[in-house]
């Protein structure tokens, strides 16, 4: 028993009259019942989007990247926009599970499992774009440093694009390990209460034979803590490296030192928005409002307004530095962003990312489910436009003869839609067959943060502090 005591002024993290067994029931029963009609419909829509994506990509591989509307001036278009967008979304999960663990934020327990799953699926989607952009995708393994018959000739280890390969694959692996190590005990819970043979077998394999021994839990705690410590700089490094793709190139509007922090803040911003989109729906459909409370949603909205403001400051700083630098190319690049041919994208970005999240300063709006859901979509639209705006800086080259304009072709749009298909297909499967909330972790915080236990704390509140500590220590050690 820990000596942690949480004031009754703090909002409970688990509502209702819950016992350990009730928590298991609440989280496991949707997994054990037949899929609902709504789930089946959602899954089929996602799967068909995925199918269309596969078709679009097959088309692109067969005919070559020429079917995309990229040209000599705008060599990066939809694919890199979508890559950065998805990677950004994939930052919330590890932030919630790692950084908030180190900061001892109790509210992370309600949302970390789903957020981490979302991270993994988002990174999977992100990875598709650079891979298929290679065109000759069967040569994709050339990016790996393997002994070859060409010298051996190695990849260029000082290229940010190769750093990306290492950063994204490490991030994916570590997030997956972190997520799965948390899932093992919960799979054991599902295994031991399974009624059907098939479920007992599959969850038995998935649980690695976990039994819940005290020594194993001690190691599990240590593992989570160290993985959190490793993931915290990792999550910051990934989007920093993604921003290097741009920042290390000598293109006006890209070659700036503000990019790493600005990209990381934007990534957290869009990631939390995506978590909100998914959890507002998940808690309703799976009836988990007592675990993902309004308090959880409000906490995430606070992160959104903070990171949204950081992003806003970054946009204004960019404009100011362009003006203040006195560099003609830099000034022109930003003039074109604000009032060039892509002015609509710039202003869409400004409205969605900077202006509208400021509404979250109002407590009423932060705690409003429908407004949160609406805003989460707006933020992700805004963040998509941010990447589009940055990449479309390419449309005015140094030579007026190569000035250009870019609109995506159908295989590019299809590929993007297909990534949604992949993401939601995975998420639907996760929501049906995996414990959406970390069961063991919720049980761990129940006695300090559960509503029914908090209500009994009046006695402790009035008790003498010295006496309380003494009694606790005496009782348990």
């Amino acid at each position, binding site marked *: *028993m*820990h000596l942690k005591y949480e004031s009754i002024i703090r909002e409970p993290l688990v509502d209702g009259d819950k*016992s*350990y*067994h009730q928590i*298991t029931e609440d989280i496991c029963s949707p997994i054990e019942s037949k899929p609902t009609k709504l789930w089946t419909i959602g899954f089929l829509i996602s799967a068909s989007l995925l199918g269309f994506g596969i078709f679009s990509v097959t088309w692109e591989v067969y005919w070559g990247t020429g079917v995309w509307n990229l040209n000599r001036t705008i060599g990066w278009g939809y694919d890199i926009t979508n890559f950065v967008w998805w990677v950004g979304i994939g930052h919330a999960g590890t932030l919630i599970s790692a950084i908030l663990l180190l900061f001892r934020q109790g509210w992370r327990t309600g949302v970390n499992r789903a957020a981490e799953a979302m991270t993994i699926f988002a990174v999977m989607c992100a990875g598709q774009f650079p891979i298929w952009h290679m065109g000759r995708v069967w040569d994709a393994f050339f990016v790996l*440093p393997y002994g070859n018959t060409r*010298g*051996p000739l*190695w990849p260029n*280890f*000082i290229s*940010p694009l190769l750093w990306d390969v*290492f950063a994204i694959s*490490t991030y994916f*692996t*570590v997030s997956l*390990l972190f997520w799965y*190590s948390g899932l*093992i*005990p919960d799979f054991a*819970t599902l*295994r*031991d*209460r399974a009624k059907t043979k098939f479920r*007992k*077998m599959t969850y*038995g*394999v*998935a649980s*690695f*034979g*976990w*039994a*819940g*021994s*005290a*020594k*194993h*839990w*001690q*190691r*599990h705690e*240590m*593992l989570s*803590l*160290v*993985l959190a410590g*490793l*993931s915290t*700089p*990792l999550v910051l490094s990934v989007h920093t490296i993604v921003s*290097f793709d741009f920042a290390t190139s000598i293109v006006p509007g890209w070659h700036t030192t503000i990019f790493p922090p600005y990209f990381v803040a934007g990534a957290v911003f869009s990631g939390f928005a995506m978590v909100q989109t998914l959890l507002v729906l998940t808690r309703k459909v799976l009836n988990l409002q007592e675990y993902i409370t309004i308090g959880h949603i409000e906490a995430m909205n606070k992160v959104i307004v903070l990171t949204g403001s950081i992003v806003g400051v970054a946009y204004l700083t960019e404009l100011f530095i362009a003006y203040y630098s006195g560099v003609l190319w830099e000034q022109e690049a930003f003039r074109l962003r604000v009032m060039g041919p892509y002015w609509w994208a710039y202003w869409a970005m400004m409205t969605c990312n900077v202006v509208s999240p400021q509404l979250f300063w109002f407590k009423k709006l932060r705690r409003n489910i429908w407004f949160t859901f609406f805003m989460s979509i707006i933020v992700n639209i805004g963040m998509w436009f941010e990447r589009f705006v940055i990449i479309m800086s390419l449309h005015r080259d140094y030579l007026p003869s190569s000035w250009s304009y870019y609109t995506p072709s159908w295989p590019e749009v299809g590929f993007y839609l297909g990534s949604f298909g992949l993401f939601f297909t995975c998420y639907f499967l996760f929501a049906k067959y995996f414990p959406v909330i970390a069961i*063991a*972790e919720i*049980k*761990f915080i129940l006695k300090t943060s559960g509503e029914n236990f908090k209500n009994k704390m009046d006695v402790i509140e009035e008790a003498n502090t010295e006496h309380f500590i003494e009694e606790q220590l005496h*009782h*348990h*050690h």
Partner: protein
Amino acid sequence: MSIKKFAVAVYDDEAVLFPAVKKVRGAGYKIHDVYTPFAVHGLDEALGEKESDLHIAGFIYGITGTCTALGFMGWIFTTDWPQNFGGKPNFPLPAFIPITFELTVLFAAVGMVLTFCYLNQIMPGVKKHIFDPRQTDDKFVLVIEVNDQNAAETEAFLKATGAEATNIQVAESDWWFGRFDKKEDYEIQQQLA
């Protein structure tokens, strides 16, 4: 594999478990293991377990990753295939940092998870005896290894420590490869007997 006899006590709450552990240890019994549905803080201490050294393993793996990355890239850029990038040095340390960092994290994380699985003897296909199906749900299970002579006495002692239920089980004490949806031979024999 070794099949042994165990006295099993099932507790309803960790607040009952802690004093029980204290009593059991005080009476000189050697606890085989305690199974809980979640990480109960302080239980390892109450059982007299040492702190886990897993983080030291993690550090060693991390350093291995750092050395691998720096050594490999350094060898390629200075020895195996030196190239001249605009007259820049052949060992550009700042530009090596991103990959070095990523490999440090990757080695540490993968190594630690594998070590964790090895130490706990868990992997897909591994089966262990579950003393109570609710030990992964809401019950706290304390297990003591017994023999034919002291079984009844131990069970009675456990009952007196506030256990909700107690029983004697003959079970495999180690792990083995098996499926959770199937009964093992020794379990079937026990049922027949």
